[in-house]
């Protein structure tokens, strides 16, 4: 089926829906989403969205910017971090005006709380900057933006999965191909501009907070078309995942006063981050947990530690952390008011992704050459405001600030440009891939390949990395890719073919894993979320730069681009 729109937004999480909201009264826009919009993973974000409103104490956007740059271990592009922290303020007010039910101060203003790495006066002490709605801030952002979409009568294509990107021979993006999961039908979406807002790819790892749907589809599709992926080696492991399950317990637990303890009951963050303690950035806390475990100080010598909320007033747990308490009760059978919670680091957030400029335009090289008509925003993009490590709450800030900017720029772009003609049979590549998978019969089971992938990525591309482990992982990935080439879809039907969807996703996971490992092997230093045991120091002389990975017929080629430094010169990062 052929559709023609001015703009197509792929993904219906915070970034996609915020972009869609910019088209309120103008332009023919459609949102294409693999899930019903309200199922998007923005809804799982818990703790808050930071903005220097200063509702409870003095705060300034430039402090927020500094924290973001330092939190990202100085790999942050500072022009983008300035946009993020300045525009966060207005974006939060815009969300409130749309109806988002923030928690309130006694004066009726938006309430704010402390969060990891957010400080006053360039690192002096934790500051109340995170605006929140209990511990379901992301849920309320997703609901509020979806509600705006209903008000604005946005056209949704639900349960339609992007399977290819369309470009002209001149390198202009002119649409996408979608697979309608409910019917099995292929849709051609012809557009002047396309926004990719499909989220992350945490499912490359075994233990993750990410939804099953987060398989890096769009990253892989662009990668296959020769576009680069930036800083893919930087993946954040969140310190407080429920042991074994990886379900997230928000940093708000620690923002409200929670403490992480080792097997001896010690508050071990005193040794690693004497000023911010448990509210140090996530990469540092996750590494500290692993170091305690390696030193034999896990709980009973095992590979987990405890999150302690038992000293918090019960009403704080009930009123400010209700969902988290529910998770702990449901999945662990524990009462967080009286019992310690077993936790381990869980794969949480991709700092890297599709390179863009601050308008959300996708770029392809070190000169930031733009792909006309192609945009990306949110976790899938790398603008780069998170650098080597994202601060808590800045993912939600990123979504609304850059989703909005991308939407506005697309609106301008579509006013000034015409549709570019599609090639004959623009869907041939997608059809060939799907037909290939559907017509193969073999004993090779994609699910087993996926399990092996996730297990190996967790072991060798997780919190700690070495050249030896990464090389082992590379050969494992090529074995898995070889096996994937023989996988057949077991469900041969057209209607809601979940088996086909998962098999396509496995192909995407393999591509994204290749990029992560290539970046991790190339970057011979330790910075933020990327820690090389064989290169344990940050190396600003050689590595104060972004990596760009390109998929070529001869394998992955690595390029790089400079980091934008405006206000803050790189310094040692201590907390």
């Amino acid at each position, binding site marked *: 089926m052929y559709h023609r729109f001015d703009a197509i937004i792929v993904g219906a999480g915070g970034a996609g829906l915020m972009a869609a909201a910019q088209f309120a009264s103008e332009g023919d826009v459609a949102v294409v989403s693999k899930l019903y919009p309200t*199922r998007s993973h923005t809804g799982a974000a818990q703790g808050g969205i930071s903005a220097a409103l200063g509702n409870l104490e003095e705060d300034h956007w430039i402090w927020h910017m500094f924290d973001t740059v330092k939190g990202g271990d100085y790999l942050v592009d500072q022009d983008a971090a300035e946009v993020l922290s300045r525009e966060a303020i207005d974006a939060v007010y815009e969300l409130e005006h749309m109806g988002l039910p923030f928690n309130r101060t006694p004066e009726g203003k938006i309430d704010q709380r402390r969060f990891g790495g957010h400080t006053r006066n360039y690192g002096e002490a934790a500051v109340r900057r995170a605006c929140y709605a209990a511990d379901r801030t992301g849920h309320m952002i997703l609901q509020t933006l979806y509600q705006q979409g209903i008000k604005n009568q946005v056209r949704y294509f639900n349960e339609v999965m992007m399977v290819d990107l369309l470009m002209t021979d001149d390198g202009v993006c002119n649409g996408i191909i979608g697979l309608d999961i409910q019917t099995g039908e292929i849709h051609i979406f012809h557009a002047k501009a396309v926004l990719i807002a499909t989220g992350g790819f945490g499912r490359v790892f075994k233990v993750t907070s990410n939804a099953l749907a987060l398989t890096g589809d769009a990253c892989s599709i662009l990668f296959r078309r020769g576009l680069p992926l930036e800083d893919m080696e930087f993946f954040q492991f969140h310190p407080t995942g429920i042991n074994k399950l990886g379900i997230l317990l928000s940093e708000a637990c620690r923002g409200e006063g929670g403490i992480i303890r080792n097997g001896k009951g010690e508050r071990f963050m005193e040794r690693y981050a004497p000023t911010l303690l448990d509210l140090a950035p996530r990469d540092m806390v996750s590494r500290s947990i692993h170091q305690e475990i390696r030193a034999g100080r896990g709980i009973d010598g095992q590979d987990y530690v405890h999150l302690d909320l038992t000293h918090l007033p019960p009403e704080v747990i009930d009123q400010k952390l209700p969902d988290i308490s529910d998770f702990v009760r449901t*999945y662990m059978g524990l009462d967080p008011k009286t019992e310690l919670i077993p936790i381990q680091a869980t794969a949480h957030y991709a700092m890297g992704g599709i390179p863009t400029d601050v308008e959300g335009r996708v770029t392809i090289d070190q000169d930031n050459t733009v792909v006309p008509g192609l945009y990306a925003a949110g976790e899938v993009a790398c603008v780069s405001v998170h650098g080597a490590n994202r601060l808590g709450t800045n993912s939600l800030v990123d979504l609304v600030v850059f989703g909005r900017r991308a939407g506005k720029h697309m609106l301008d772009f579509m006013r000034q440009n015409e549709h570019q003609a599609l090639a004959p049979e623009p869907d041939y590549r997608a059809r060939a891939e799907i037909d290939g998978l559907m017509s193969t019969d073999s004993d090779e089971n994609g699910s087993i390949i996926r399990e092996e992938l996730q297990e190996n990525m967790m072991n060798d591309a997780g919190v700690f990395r070495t050249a030896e482990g990464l090389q082992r992982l590379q050969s494992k990935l090529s074995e898995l890719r070889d096996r994937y080439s023989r996988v057949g*879809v077991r469900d041969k039907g057209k209607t809601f073919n979940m088996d086909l969807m998962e098999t396509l996703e496995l192909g995407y996971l393999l591509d994204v894993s290749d990029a992560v490992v290539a970046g991790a092997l190339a970057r011979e230093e330790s910075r933020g979320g990327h820690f090389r045991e064989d290169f344990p120091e940050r190396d600003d002389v050689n590595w104060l730069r972004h990596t760009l990975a390109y998929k070529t017929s001869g394998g992955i080629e690595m390029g790089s681009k400079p980091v934008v430094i405006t206000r803050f010169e790189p310094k040692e990062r201590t907390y």
Partner: protein
Amino acid sequence: MEVQFRIERFNPDQDTRPWFGEYTLEVEPTDRVLDALNEIKWKQDGTLTFRRSCAHGVCGSDAMRINGRNRLACKELIRDYGDKITIEPMLGYRVIKDLVVDMEDFFDSYRTLQPYLVNDENPGAGRERLQSPEDREVFDDTTKCIMCGACTTACPITWTNKDFLGPAAIVNAHRFIYDSRDKGANERLEVLNSKSGVWRCRTIFNCTEACPRGIEVTRAIEQVKRTLLTGE
């Protein structure tokens, strides 16, 4: 532990009526029902089909009937069910395939009640609308809804009366009617006072029992009824 699963199957491409598939699986008591469904799909029968995403009860994809009650498969642990588990799709909507139902009517009902803040006054740039913590608390419970459909498809009235908007739509209207910033209550209440509205509710409480978010759904519906009667 070994568990016997009976799962309702229906593939419109080949079946004329639903049937039950039987699967035996070795699981941990602390596994989620969703883990078992995945395991069956991945290791035993690749054609088994259901919706899922977040796997921890916040996205609302995997509402289904588990031993006869509407539940999210990712929020239920095997140990609470014992060694025989029957899984069926939610009632009242067309089955697309296996455990996947057509949610279009559900979202249509939701859209009927202006589920967005109605307020055209310009609050001014650079500041929020004020709202006291007490005013914010009034509608807190109904902001939790994840639109999984468990309440609406547990309601016997919705099974027989297609006009009834159903509990989930009312919950989402409630969330705005009692928001001190909203100006659209009268229009929503007019719809809720019509024959498709709250008076169809017979306070059976199935919705409250089914809600995986612990929303007091029946209470919210009763509050709307009271407002319609008293204007408060």
